[in-house]
């Protein structure tokens, strides 16, 4: 399952860090952050609930880049 979320982040390097953090979150198969369109495409692993996984993704992203936001 794939979903797209709007994000807000200030610098391109921070966007790369968010991408890495999202990828490392349990339940996420792959994640791509597009800094230019401010969007995050997340591909979830089978049988994962997108909502709960995204809460974790958001927490992990906040850890690497305090100044970011994912609009869930």
């Amino acid at each position, binding site marked *: 399952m794939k979903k797209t979320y709007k994000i807000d982040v*200030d*610098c*391109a*390097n921070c966007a*790369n*860090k968010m991408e890495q953090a999202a990828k490392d979150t349990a339940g996420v198969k792959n994640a*791509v952050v*597009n*800094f*230019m*369109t*401010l*969007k995050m*495409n997340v591909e979830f692993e089978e049988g994962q609930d997108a909502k709960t996984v995204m809460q974790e993704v958001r927490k992990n992203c906040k*850890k*690497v*880049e*305090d*100044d970011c936001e994912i609009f869930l």
Partner: protein
Amino acid sequence: MSRKQKKMLVRILIAAALMIALNFVPVQGYVRFALYLVPYLIIGYDILIKAFKGIKNRQAFDESLLMAIATIGAIAIALVENGDYTEAIAVMLFYQVGEWFQSYAVGKSRRNISELMDIRPDYANIETDGKLEQVDPDEVEPGSEIVVQPGEKVPIDGIVTEGSSTLNTSALTGESIPREVETGDEILSGCINMTGVLRIRTTKEFGESTVSKILDLVENASSRKSKSEEFITKFARIYTPAVVYSAIALAVLPPLVRMFGVGLPAEWGTWIYRALTFLVISCPCALVISIPLSFFAGIGGASNAGVLIKGSNYMETLSQTKYVVFDKTGTLTKGVFEVNAVHHNEMAREKLLEYAALAESASSHPISKSLQRAYGKELDRSRVKDIKEISGNGVTALVDGIPVAAGNDKLMKKLGIEYIDCHHVGTIIHMAIDGKYAGHIVISDIEKPHAAEAVRELKASGVVKTVMLTGDIDRVARQVASSIGIDQVYSELLPEDKVAKVEELLAEKKEKEKLAFVGDGINDAPVLTRADIGIAMGAMGSDAAIEAADVVLMDDDPLKIAKAIRISRKCLRIVYENIWFAIGIKVICLILGAVGIANMWLAIFADVGVMIIAVLNAIRALFVKKL
């Protein structure tokens, strides 16, 4: 400017004013330190907080921390040595100016590019009780009737049920030639209705309509990252820690060596200062921002010219194209039959065409249609009598009372009329008027007007070899290829043979030289996917082609292929310029910093200045009109 940007601008101005004003305040010692701390905190408090949070979250190596260490270090040196706090504040100030500019420039180009791609219709008009009502296009069911007034965008794909108008398709194709539509015609979303009111029965949902598909494709394009972007991401991950460790080494090792190895004074202050300039230079933001921005701008500019590139990776591959393989029909030729020539005619060409068109006027065969098109005027059917169609041969009829025969060589033989064979390729229609041979008309699939020019331009933009694949017979294929200037031809191929041929060509070439296949998306989807890069043309409205291809040309002009390649070359040239420029300047400044020639000011240029120049350079990728 967003609220965040405005707030930052105010902070920058206040801090700058205070910093300058404090230069004229004659105080010394701790009072001076306290006074200078005010502008420093105004400009840098968020950086300090971020640096602290970074350490707490074990994400130590980020720019905020580098800036915090560098400026606190500079303040500490100033406190013990000369009381020159300006440098620390200036570093923080310029860093923030750089960040502000970056966010402003990126925001601005983000808006510019989305304006270029601004083909999203906001509403659809539905008529209820004689009144027009604006609704969200998402809510319109397929099969509903919508009304599009002059000046409005067509929101959903459909069929015109009433009215006729002229459409501006430039948002879709990049071409400004208007297109006429009338009742019964198919109409694509994203076009702008220019003259008349149109009623349209929708055939698709909004999400499935052309305009939504295109927007989706372009917006997601920069998510498919290119090799250069991946390289930069990896580079940034190694680079920042590497510079931080070298800075520590620079601060500690030389003084120790001087003290214990050579017996000179340690000069801790000098070496720590040099280490701090290292930290300021180290920020990789110029690279990390400018590379994706270049691709994004390139993709935006290309889509504005009617070339949709589905990802940064395809932009990169396209720029390395050395071999271009064409499908013939629909790509280099029009795929429709037209009168190509009239030979051995005694009477005027127009007169002969008139007789032919009139004799064939009862038929709906594509050949007779092309004769009527070539004649170009309204046909007066009352002039024709006694039409006899002889299946597989042609027709005979009385035109203005004169017997006319139009057909192939069999018909001529049957009528006992001597005819002259044609050496041209195509369908030959021999004409006999009043029992005498009157010449023949050649009807064939004709080359697109820009086909030969397109091949020349491809060669000029660095393509080594052009190949044409076709299912057509060898004689036709060779003639088309030689008149267009194609290097190599493979004819009489079945669709699956085309895949095999492309695989053969792929195996022959070198890894770095990419092979592009250009087709019209009709029954060549497997070849489009197999080639290094698949280019579909004339794909407006063809879902299969948009699906299978990596690059989609919105109209069917083959000249766009060369243009697409030039756009990608320009974009990649800018990407490489930025990579070399940014890394080059940083390395030079790092060396100068290590030997003590570069001071903090040069370090700021290496950081902020390089970033600004790289961003401005990246935006150049947007301008593709003149390519």
